Each structure stands twice: as structure tokens, then as C-alpha cells.
């Protein structure tokens, strides 16, 4: 069967199970867009290519599938770099297809030409420049395989225009085999026995779970391990939802803005089992003071994460789900009464830390941002998909919305990219049309991709935006308050839009609350609407996120409210 490049591309994509592409057309991809008209793949037209990548990212995180974007060459491609870098840092499976100038023009400074493969080399798991249409089917299949296997990540395919419209005899490609790429999924049994032994002898163990638990779909196995052995669990920002927030063993998030008891437990435990984490600096604080009394077990699929930041007693390379299953099998059941007795002093100590500080804040006549998130949690019964922007809004969302299930908290953790939340919410709503999807935003962040209001309304996606509006770039203002003598250099946004008018200008619903008693009615009306909604909450202007571990300090040295 003779097909052109564009047809082969769409055929292989469909065979990979893709039903949605987020994109923005341009000269070098017109042929592909023309073919898309004949395909059953849904295309979501965004308003900025950055929005396409963040939307594909949100789609991937909320569905467990690979997110796909299609953009043109030159500026279209460069506009995807931020989104790709964010997906790379958070290990999200994406395939980004960029158009490119025809092969004979490459390297000639042609119109809308950039070396996107060169530019994204350091922020993609892998990337390809296709020069021959006969390589297309194999490369696209490989790209999907790489995106979703091992430690997932974004893969970019650069397709020159003449490759998209070259015809060739289509030959289906067999299963992907890459001789140099063989991730280790099954953990080493000897290492696991050592882990079992450590667990049996530990007096004050904790589990530290991360994004890997969610990517590996291992939350059930994690719950089994933690509950059968009564081991308290904390998580990084990326791990929230991997273990139920309502479980009595839950310690809260760990790290720079983690809970008091999580940071103290990590610092005084004698065994820390890290699963699907990378011991990032936001978590560890001063690395040589981190978990200084503990033996550390590190279970991760990526060997480069192990022994990168903290010394590890027992490294285990493997998939989190498979490793936890094997661990659960190896662990002998312990008599419940003696286990309770053994854990009691540690559990009591943790309770004492919880009694000392558990994210309490002062209610005043102003709307407190923490209150908005708490009310949102209550009114959605903790079942909404929450995306966030970056900064204080992100931290309050992580602290006050308690996640019981995975794939419900979608945030730019590693890169910390403002403008991520709204397009990611759009992607999540496309993936999960029956769910309520809420973007918790700041007034600064929301403006970075506000143009996606048009996307949401074009596809009738009832995404809810909750703006914690304090007129500042809040997180930076907080640092300036605490460490720079309140010199608010360029963090006060003297000009901001009327968000109600802005919502209505796009055809959406705009609501505002200026007093605490207005919060609940506004949330109720917004959540019930079938339109895209912006809810503008005018919150206390100089509220800070607490606890806070100052940069470079040990996580025991927290500033408290």
C-alpha cells in the first residue's frame, strides 16, 4: 500500500492507541493537518504551543496514556521547549511532533527553521530528526516505546515537510527492540531480602513515596506494605495521591513546605524507604543532614537517581509496582498485637509532632487562601482533579487538598513552570470528561496562558479556575519578606485585569468573592456551572506558606507560622 509520510504518521499513532492530539498548525505541518481531516483522531486546537504541551502533559498524567502534540517548525517548535522541559523533569510520557523545513533547506537559515533537535537534546528523553520517509514508521513506534517505558519522558520527532509528503510503500514495523536500552523492571532478589531484614529490625521506619509510585500504578501495593507493617508514609510533591491522605499512617508532604511531622519523622527515623523518588533538594534541605540517623533504602527504575544526592544503604533498581509486589510477598505476616506494641512509641512521637503543628492558620476578616482550598476540598469531597500553577498557590493546594487517589494532583514539580496549570487542566478535562477539574492559580501565573480560555470554550470544557488573587508574585514576595527585609522588588503587580470581565470576554463565567462568607457560595456556583469558570478570590495580600525550610537548611529547622 502506497502512503505518504503524513498518512503513515497518523496510522502508526492510531495503532499506538492515541485518540487525541493537542496542537497548532503552521506551514511545515499543513500536510499532516490535511491528513488529520481524514482521521478519527480528535485534535484540540490550542492558542499557544506551550499550551499544547502542557495540555498533553495533563492529559497523560490524568489518563496514564502517552500525551501527543503537533506543532510547526521554527517558533512553533521553540514555544514547546518550556513544556518539554517540565515533562522531562517530572518524567511524563509525551511524544512531541514538530514540523521542519524540507531536508534540502536544513542548515540554510531557512524561513521558520530552528535546530529543535539540538535545542531539546538536554531536555528530552530522546529525539529524532527524520530524513527518510522509510524510517518514519519505525521511529514513531520507537518514540512511543521510549516515552512510556522505563523512566517515562518526552520524546521529540522533527519531521521535514518533504518527508511528510513523500510517498512510499508502507511496511508495518514489528515490535521495538533497542539494543542499548533495557530498563530493569524486576528487582534483584538478594537486595530485596536485605530490605526485608532491615524492615524487621527497624524501630522507627518511614516510607517516602514519590512520582514513581504514580507512574508505575503502584499505590495499591504501597498501601498494602504500609498498612500490613504499620509504617508511616510521607510523599514528595509529585507523590501526593500515591498514598491516601485520609489514612492514619499519612504524615503529610515532606520538604521545604512539608508538614512539621513529616520533616521531623524523616529526620529522626532509623529506616527510610524511598520508593519512586529522587531525593530532590526541595525535599532534602541540607543533604548531609538529611535522615542522618537512618539507613536508606532507595527503590527506583533509574540508576542515575540512586546515590546521586544522598548515600544509600540498599539500592534496588526496579519498577516500583513490581518491587513492592515482590516485597509484600517476601514479608512474613507479623502478629498485629506485637506489631502495634513495637510501633507505639514511634507513632506516639509522630502524634506529638502533629499536635505541635498541623498547618493551622489564623482566620481574619480577609479571605485566607488556605480557607479557599479547604472549602474547595470539602465541596468536591476530595474527588476533583486538581492542577496547580506555581508558587504559593501550588503549595497551599498541596497542603490543604487531601488526595486519596493517584492521578488527581497535576503540578509542575521539577521545573516549577508558571502557566502550567490551566492548559494542564484542559488536557485533564479532555481525558476525564466526567470529572470536575480545577486549576488552583495565582493572579500572576494564570495570566501566562490565559489565552487558553478560547481553547476551553471552543471545546466546551467546564474547567474551573480558582485564582488566589493577592496582587503579588506571592512566593517571591514571601522570600523578600523573610530574607530581604521586605524589599518587594518587582513582585507587586500594580496592574491586573478584571477577571470577571476577562472570563466573560471569552464567553465564560466570571465570579468574585471579596469576603470569607462569599467563598462558599462562589465555589458552589462555579463548581455547578457547565461553562468554563474563573473564580477570583481576593485574598489576604501578605500571607505566607508555612512551614518553611529556608534554602540550604536542614529540614528540622522549619519556620512556623
Amino acid at each position, binding site marked *: 500500500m502506497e502512503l505518504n509520510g503524513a498518512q503513515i504518521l497518523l496510522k502508526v499513532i492510531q495503532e499506538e492507541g492515541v485518540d487525541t492530539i493537542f496542537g497548532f498548525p503552521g506551514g511545515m505541518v499543513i500536510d499532516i493537518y490535511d491528513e488529520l481531516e481524514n482521521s478519527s483522531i480528535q485534535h484540540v486546537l490550542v492558542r499557544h504551543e506551550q499550551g499544547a504541551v502542557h495540555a498533553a502533559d495533563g492529559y497523560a498524567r490524568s489518563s496514564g496514556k502517552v500525551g501527543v502534540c503537533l506543532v510547526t517548525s521554527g517558533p512553533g517548535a521553540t514555544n514547546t521547549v518550556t513544556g518539554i522541559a517540565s515533562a522531562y523533569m517530572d518524567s511524563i510520557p509525551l511524544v512531541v511532533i514538530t514540523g521542519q523545513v524540507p531536508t534540502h533547506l536544513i542548515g540554510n537559515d531557512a524561513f521558520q527553521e530552528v535546530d529543535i533537535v*539540538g535545542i531539546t*537534546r538536554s531536555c528530552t528523553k530522546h529525539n529524532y530528526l527524520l530524513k527518510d520517509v522509510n524510517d518514519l514508521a519505525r521511529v514513531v513506534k520507537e518514540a512511543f516505546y521510549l516515552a512510556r517505558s522505563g523512566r517515562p519522558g518526552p520524546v521529540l520527532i522533527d519531521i521535514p515537510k518533504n518527508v511528510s509528503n513523500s510517498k512510499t510503500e508502507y511496511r508495518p514495523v514489528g515490535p521495538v527492540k533497542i539494543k542499548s*536500552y533495557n530498563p530493569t523492571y524486576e528487582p534483584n532478589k538478594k537486595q530485596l531480602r536485605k530490605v526485608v531484614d532491615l524492615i524487621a529490625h527497624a524501630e522507627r521506619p518511614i516510607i517516602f513515596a514519590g512520582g514513581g509510585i504514580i507512574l508505575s500504578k503502584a499505590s495499591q501495593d504501597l498501601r498494602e506494605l504500609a498498612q500490613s507493617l504499620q509504617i508511616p508514609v510521607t510523599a514528595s510533591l509529585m507523590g501526593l495521591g500515591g498514598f491516601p491522605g485520609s489514612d492514619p499512617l499519612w504524615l503529610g508532604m515532606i520538604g521545604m513546605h512539608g508538614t512539621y511531622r513529616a520533616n521531623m519523622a524523616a529526620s529522626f527515623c532509623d529506616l527510610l524507604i524511598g520508593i519512586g523518588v529522587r531525593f530532590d533538594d526541595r525535599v532534602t534541605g541540607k543533604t548531609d543532614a538529611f535522615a542522618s540517623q537512618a539507613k536508606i533504602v532507595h527503590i527506583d527504575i533509574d540508576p542515575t537517581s540512586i546515590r546521586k544526592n544522598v548515600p544509600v544503604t540498599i539500592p534496588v533498581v526496579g519498577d516500583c509496582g513490581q518491587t513492592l509486589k515482590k516485597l509484600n510477598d517476601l514479608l512474613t505476616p507479623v502478629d498485629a498485637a506485637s506489631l502495634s506494641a513495637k510501633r507505639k512509641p514511634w507513632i506516639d512521637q509522630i502524634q506529638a509532632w502533629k499536635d505541635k503543628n498541623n498547618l493551622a492558620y489564623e482566620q481574619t476578616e480577609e479571605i485566607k487562601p488556605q480557607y479557599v482550598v479547604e472549602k474547595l476540598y470539602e465541596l468536591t469531597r476530595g474527588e476533583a482533579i486538581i492542577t496547580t500553577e506555581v508558587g504559593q498557590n501550588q503549595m497551599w493546594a498541596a497542603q490543604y487538598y487531601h488526595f486519596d487517589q493517584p492521578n488527581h494532583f497535576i503540578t509542575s514539580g521539577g521545573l516549577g513552570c508558571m502557566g502550567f496549570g490551566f492548559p494542564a487542566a484542559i488536557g485533564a478535562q479532555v481525558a476525564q470528561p466526567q470529572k470536575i477539574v480545577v486549576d488552583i492559580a495565582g493572579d500572576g501565573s494564570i495570566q501566562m496562558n490565559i489565552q487558553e480560555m478560547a481553547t476551553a470554550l471552543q471545546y466546551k470544557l467546564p474547567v474551573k479556575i480558582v485564582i488566589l488573587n493577592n496582587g503579588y508574585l506571592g512566593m517571591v514576595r514571601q522570600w523578600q519578606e523573610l530574607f530581604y527585609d521586605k524589599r518587594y522588588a518587582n513582585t507587586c503587580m500594580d496592574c491586573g485585569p478584571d477577571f470577571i470581565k476577562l472570563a466573560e470576554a471569552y464567553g465564560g463565567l466570571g465570579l468574585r468573592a471579596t469576603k470569607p462568607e462569599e467563598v462558599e457560595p462562589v465555589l458552589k456556583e462555579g463548581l455547578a456551572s457547565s461553562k468554563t469558570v474563573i473564580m477570583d478570590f481576593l485574598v489576604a495580600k501578605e500571607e505566607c506558606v508555612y512551614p518553611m525550610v529556608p534554602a540550604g537548611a536542614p529540614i528540622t529547622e522549619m519556620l512556623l507560622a
Partner: protein
Amino acid sequence: MDEEKHILTMLVDNEPGVLSRIVGLFSARGYNIESLVVAPTIDPDVSRITLVTKANLPELEQIEKQLRKLINVIKLRDMSGKKAVKREMALICVHAKPKDRAEVLRIVSIFRCKVVDTGLEHFIIEVSGNEDKINALIKLLKPMGIEKIARTGALALYREPN
């Protein structure tokens, strides 16, 4: 912790951009490349890259792991121990005024290297051997005045058992 020189050799896909990936990894993560040699092997789809880096042991562990993670890197080995044959080559353009010519030629003979170009005032010497031999030759030629040097960087092959 002490930084030491390590020779890493890797087999990679012979494709455009692969060298750029490897060098980009080093520069992005702040690792150091002292020298680098790359050429195809007997298999035209596979190239060998031999790289000398200066790092302490924990850094070296990270470097090796990061390199192995690259999709285009097929195999990687640290050649720093005794179980490898190591060689470098250099072309050295040395001043040779009439009074020095005999001495230069004597040094060339002692080191068993060759003169591959000669002019009224200079010789170009070709030398191959291990790093110490080349450094020693350069040291002896320095008083005469070395005009320019082109060095290859290390090549290494593992001494297979039997």
C-alpha cells in the same frame, strides 16, 4: 575527595548527533572532558568514543550512569586500570636551528619516533605511545622551542583474557 583521570570508552550508534549528545551531557552537568577520540568501528553502524575525564569517584559513578542512560550508548567501560592497552599519538612541530638539529634527531632516535616533515628551521615529529612517553618527549623538546602540537587524546582497548 581526590580527582583522578579516567579513560572511558563507549560503543555508540554511528548516527548524526550522537557525539553532540555525549558532549552536551558533559557540558550540561559540568563534567570535564580532557580529550576525546571518535571513529567508526568494523561495524559501520557503530562508532567508538574514547574520552578522558578528570573526576572523583562519586562523580565518576554519576558520569558512567548518565552515559549508560543515553539511548545511543550501547556499551561503556572504564579503562583506567591495568587491563587495557592505552596509546596516544602526537604530531610535534619543533624548532630546529642548525645548532639543535643533531640533538633533536638524537632524541627522536632514543624515543623510537619519526620525523615526518623537515624544513630549514623545523621538524615535524610523529610519536605514538602511552601518555608518559609523549609527555617525556615534549619535555625534552621544549628547550628547543615547540612551535605547535596536535595530540589525539587517549585510545584504549581492553586486554581480553586469553
